[in-house]
């Protein structure tokens, strides 16, 4: 795969990016954790509410030992929360941001269990003579985190079967129409750093989430009839595994992956049918495309019209239920730009094009039309994988929402680097996810003006 050269300089972004000041200065909201089903605490996040009380370290204190005080959640942005210490009333000047899923945030009552007293910040100590009365009034009937909150966070981060050393089949990043065998080298929050087993280069790695449609169990390529770049020995072993179901303990097996939806009805995609698809090599474009091959188990090889390599090396595998393929007319109905085949002369009209190319449109019935209640809105800030350089997770904004489809804009970058992704993409994360996982987040690009 030839990456656009201009996009490979993302490492120039701001390291150690801090969401808090950025969210405040841009007056923006971040998508709620409950929008990201693949992320820790997503199922429970609606119970995390503004007004909740927590215990956190009070740095404004003269005591030699750590002191803690009660803070109120003022605003929630992803995993981040704007906090205000109790006693400051409506004074916003000491507000601060914290990540709710770190070990530094405790439920009310935690200090008492470890015998530590709560001490108000020095600047407000004089405000009340009787802090007990004040706290009883402020805390009674309000909400806090459950005592096992942090344990739940830790549990939900590591709750999967992908470990270092597990073998998978994953798309060949140098030839997207083929799969290669790779070994899991590192797992961070469900994201896999994979090393191609046949690679001659030392750091020939590839990042993808364990729920990515790019990664599959061992034997998947042969089961589905997908092109596989692997040794004959590996292929023979796979054939044996398919017959005996006898996997190696390090093999990723089918039940470690999400099952794709089965199509309803007897109608099937046929070779030559036309459709619209997100261009896998230029994710900002939805293009005119063709079904080039029908694989087994409801997988398709799709080619982008006008830019297909002679040998089919740029065909891309999509499941028939993929949210990244659309029926003819999808862009027009939704007011989106459809990229016509390269070199197409005149204004592109599907009716004319189908006639000229003597082809038919894939029936609308064949596409998955389900739109999940995802909760994303334009303007929401997220942490998004740059799918052209998937080891990078960047500060980004949902710039458009079309049903379940999201246009992701990378903050500070031109719109040509935008990427279309599904709302359930495992490559999107809430603000603060990288901090929880201790993964570097690429801040917005800062343009340096020439002197």
């Amino acid at each position: 795969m030839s990456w656009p050269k201009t996009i490979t300089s993302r490492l120039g972004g701001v390291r150690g990016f801090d969401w808090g000041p950025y969210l405040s200065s841009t007056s923006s909201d971040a998508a709620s954790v409950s929008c990201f089903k693949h992320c820790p605490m997503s199922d429970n996040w609606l119970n995390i509410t503004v007004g909740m009380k927590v215990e956190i370290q009070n740095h404004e204190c003269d005591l030699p030992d750590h002191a803690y005080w009660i803070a109120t959640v003022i605003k929630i942005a992803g995993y981040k929360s704007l906090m205000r210490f109790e006693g400051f009333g409506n004074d916003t000047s000491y507000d601060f941001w914290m990540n709710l899923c770190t070990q530094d945030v405790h439920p009310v009552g935690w200090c008492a269990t470890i015998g530590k007293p709560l001490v108000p910040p020095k600047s407000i100590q004089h405000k009340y003579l009787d802090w007990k009365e004040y706290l009883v009034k402020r805390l009674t009937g309000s909400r806090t985190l459950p005592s096992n909150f942090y344990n739940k966070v830790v549990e939900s981060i590591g709750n999967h079967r992908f470990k270092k050393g597990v073998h998978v089949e994953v798309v060949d990043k140098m030839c997207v129409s083929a799969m290669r065998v790779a070994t899991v080298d590192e797992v961070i929050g469900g994201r896999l750093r994979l090393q191609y087993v046949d690679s001659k280069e030392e750091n020939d790695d590839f990042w993808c989430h364990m729920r990515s449609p790019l990664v599959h169990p061992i034997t998947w390529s042969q089961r589905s009839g997908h092109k596989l770049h692997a040794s004959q020995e590996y292929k023979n072993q796979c054939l044996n595994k398919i017959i005996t179901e006898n996997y190696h303990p390090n093999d990723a097996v089918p039940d470690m992956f999400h099952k794709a939806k089965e199509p309803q009805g007897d109608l099937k995609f046929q070779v030559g049918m036309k459709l619209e698809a997100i261009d896998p090599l230029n994710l900002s474009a939805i293009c005119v495309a063709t079904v080039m091959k029908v694989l087994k188990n409801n997988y398709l090889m799709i080619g982008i019209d006008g830019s297909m390599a002679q040998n089919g090396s740029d065909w891309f595998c999509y499941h028939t239920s993929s949210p990244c393929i659309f029926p003819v007319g999808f862009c027009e109905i939704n007011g989106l730009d459809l990229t016509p085949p390269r070199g197409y002369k005149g204004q592109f009209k599907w009716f004319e094009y189908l006639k000229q190319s003597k082809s038919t449109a894939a029936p609308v019935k064949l596409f998955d039309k389900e739109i999940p209640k995802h909760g994303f809105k334009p303007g929401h800030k997220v942490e998004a994988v740059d799918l052209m350089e998937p080891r990078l997770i960047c500060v980004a904004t949902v710039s458009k929402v079309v049903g379940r489809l999201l246009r992701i804009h990378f903050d500070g970058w031109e719109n040509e680097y935008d990427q279309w992704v599904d709302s359930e993409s495992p490559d999107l994360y809430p603000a603060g996810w990288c901090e929880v996982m201790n993964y570097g987040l690429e801040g917005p690009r800062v343009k340096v003006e020439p002197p």
Partner: protein
Amino acid sequence: DVPTSTKKWEQKQVQIKTLEGEFSVTMWASGGDD
């Protein structure tokens, strides 16, 4: 400030320790309990 849905919320006595002494308050806890 009673949560509208009490399905995943439980009322609990929470112990508070300050420099002046200890006392308890009644709060709602949730956000992760099954």
